[in-house]
């Protein structure tokens, strides 16, 4: 129970469904704020209080459990390490993978619980071959992407009561109807451990801001930057380019090279990616039987899924989209769908450009 409306309504539905429910607020930061100031950040003392009051209303026990150390190691430190390595991490995904449905789930099971219930918008379905993870009914709120990293064992012990609700507005209405004070509380977005939303500034503090060069694909210096971590593949804003492009068109970040502290830019066409692959993968159920199959791939939480062909081998999962993908950053998760069903995901290690270099 984060103190938000989704987890409050999820808890209410779980109670109504007849489950024996205990509300837990995760303390993920030791230096938490006191008041919730706006929609950034999470888990302030006010959030903990909102969660507690929701639990009071539902008549369920409430505890605050400290996972701040694990969170720091598995999510925050990983976040910094990934940026240092020139990749683009997704900390919400990492939190689900390592904290909410791992550390918390493990502790819950040891303490005698059967499942972790959250307010995520996703649906679990009993399919022919076992449990399946599907998108939520509300496409705009669907969070199956950040849950794509869960495996069968984890899914067997999760419960998402909100997945079937057609819209978020209905969830809020339900909260109001139930008398939950958080019915109109704004959703939190951005990264929970960077409350002011200034990821760039936060990273500059952790990674250090060292000036470096911006290069074109030919290796020519076309500008300078104040720290490679501030850039993500596909980014256009924030580039200080002293030398305009020969074709006059805008340039985009193609690659971040932390070792040499350089950023490579090029035209939009150069962002096109013909193939993505990665070694680390997980399956939301049984691993696919076929080594090659048709699917849809989604590379960001708010990106559209695109039709593709997947090739699963021991050393890597390769996905070839039917049309080139734009702005794919290594470190992101590629979630594979068949219809509304999540098959699984892999972390993108390598991308193959659709455009030969030098053009």
């Amino acid at each position, binding site marked *: 129970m984060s103190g938000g409306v989704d987890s409050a309504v999820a808890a209410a539905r779980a109670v109504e469904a007849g*489950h024996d429910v205990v509300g837990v607020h995760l303390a993920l930061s030791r230096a938490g704020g006191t008041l919730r100031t706006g929609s950034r950040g999470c888990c302030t003392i006010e959030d903990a209080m909102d969660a507690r009051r929701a639990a009071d209303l539902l008549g369920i026990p409430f505890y605050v459990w400290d996972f701040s150390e694990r969170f720091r190691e598995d999510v925050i430190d990983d976040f910094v390490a990934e940026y240092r390595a020139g990749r683009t991490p997704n900390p919400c995904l990492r939190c689900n993978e390592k904290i909410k449905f791992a550390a918390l789930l493990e502790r819950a*099971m*040891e*303490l*005698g619980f*059967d499942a972790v219930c959250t307010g995520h918008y996703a649906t679990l379905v009993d399919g022919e071959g076992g449990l399946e993870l599907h998108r939520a009914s509300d496409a705009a709120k669907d969070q199956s992407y950040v849950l794509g990293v869960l495996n069968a064992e984890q899914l067997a012990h999760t419960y998402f009561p909100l997945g079937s609700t057609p819209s978020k507005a209905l969830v809020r209405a339900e909260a109001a109807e139930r008398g939950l004070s958080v019915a109109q509380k704004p959703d939190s977005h951005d990264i929970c451990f960077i409350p002011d939303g200034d990821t760039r500034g936060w990273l500059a503090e952790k990674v250090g801001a060292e000036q470096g060069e911006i290069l074109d694909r030919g290796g020519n210096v076309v500008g300078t930057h104040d720290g490679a971590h501030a850039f993500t593949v596909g980014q256009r804003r924030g580039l200080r380019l002293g030398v305009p492009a020969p074709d006059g068109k805008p340039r985009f970040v193609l690659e971040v090279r932390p070792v040499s502290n350089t950023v490579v830019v090029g035209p939009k066409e150069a962002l096109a990616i013909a193939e993505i692959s990665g070694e680390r993968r997980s399956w939301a159920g049984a691993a696919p039987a076929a080594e090659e199959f048709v699917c849809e791939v989604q590379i960001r939480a708010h990106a559209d899924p695109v039709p593709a062909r997947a090739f699963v081998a021991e050393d890597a999962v390769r996905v070839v989209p039917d049309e080139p993908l734009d702005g794919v950053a290594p470190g992101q998760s590629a979630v594979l769908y068949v219809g509304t069903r999540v098959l699984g995901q892999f972390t993108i290690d390598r991308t193959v450009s659709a455009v030969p270099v030098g053009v």
Partner: protein
Amino acid sequence: MPPRSAIRATESRPRARCESGGVHYLDHAATTDLRPEAAEEWLRVARQTGNASSTHGAGQRARRILEESRERLAAVLGCDPIEVVLTSGGTESVNLAVQGLWRSRFSGRESILLPDGEHHATLDTVAALAAEGARVVPVALDGVGRIPADAFAAGLATDGVALATALVANNEVGTVNDAAALAASARSASVPLHLDAVAAFGHLPLSFAALRGDAPAGAGLVALSVAGHKIGAPTGTGALVVARTAHLAPLQHGGGQQRGLRSGTQDVAGAAAFALAAELAVAERAAEAVRLSALRDRLVAGIRERVPSAELIGHPDPAGRLPGNAHLLFPGAPSESLLFLLDVAGVSASAGSACQAGIAEPSHVVQALGRSEVEARSVIRFTLGRTSSDADVDAVLAAIGDAYERASGAAR
């Protein structure tokens, strides 16, 4: 598509909540049952309208009850009635004493003698004063949580100590200090001493006058804090005993009540209930100490039988700790998990202080005893009180084995 049916259940579960038929409360150090007599007295007096500062008949009647209550408290605490300053509780009393003594200190004295392991009311108050320039002279606790008399004396002898503060008995681990020795040291060093008796009052013999002796003004014991809800008076009552010769700046300004040390309309009903509760607590103190110690000793022995690795923290000798206090370390089992499992089994206990968000923080007291942060997060404090019985001890013993096994398995 069909909705997901049943969630796959785990194989075993801990005992269901309140299977034993009720909650067994073993957190009397946090707060204890309101004495029925105190509740009745509160209601009786509260129904009589009157501001004790008013000059008319109604005010005089209220004033009379207030001052009689003050006299009764003074008799119990071993001081003069004029020395009893009624407050809203332990935290206010501690704040008034520490800040008050600091703000009226002799010029040139810029340090505060602060032992480790004090209650947060003291620690946080001193921290606030440190931010204003006070220098903190720490005193380390020994391995069982006592303030060593020689180290305390040595600290007092350092240059420019404006005030010293110390717990009569540690509220967490229960260790009893030699308050008489600490007061004598402060007197010899001509330093004013505040004693925090919030946990000790009602459990240990306590006399302000005996501890103060014939110390000159501004030296030795000058202030003593007590709280009502710890002895069965309503929450919101308390007192700070302030020696008549002490110099203490008030926190709260206004009508000038209580020697100007604590302005504000006085809580007559609270004072009456507090006085009655104090008399009852002190009257039964000796017998309760024997009864609670016996229950506590059985509890500790029983726990160690079921959890051989459990370790008693604080003074090993029953006479060296507060009767009714059993503070144990459960290696490899996080307090959070243990408290949850005990709660499910209908046993209420605690572990150090909880922060405002509700997280059980690693006990600073346990760390002050030289233990690691991990160990400081694996402790449970059981405290027995007036309404405790064998059934409460039995409930703990029935639950602790399974709770430890699960909690140490869940440790991350």
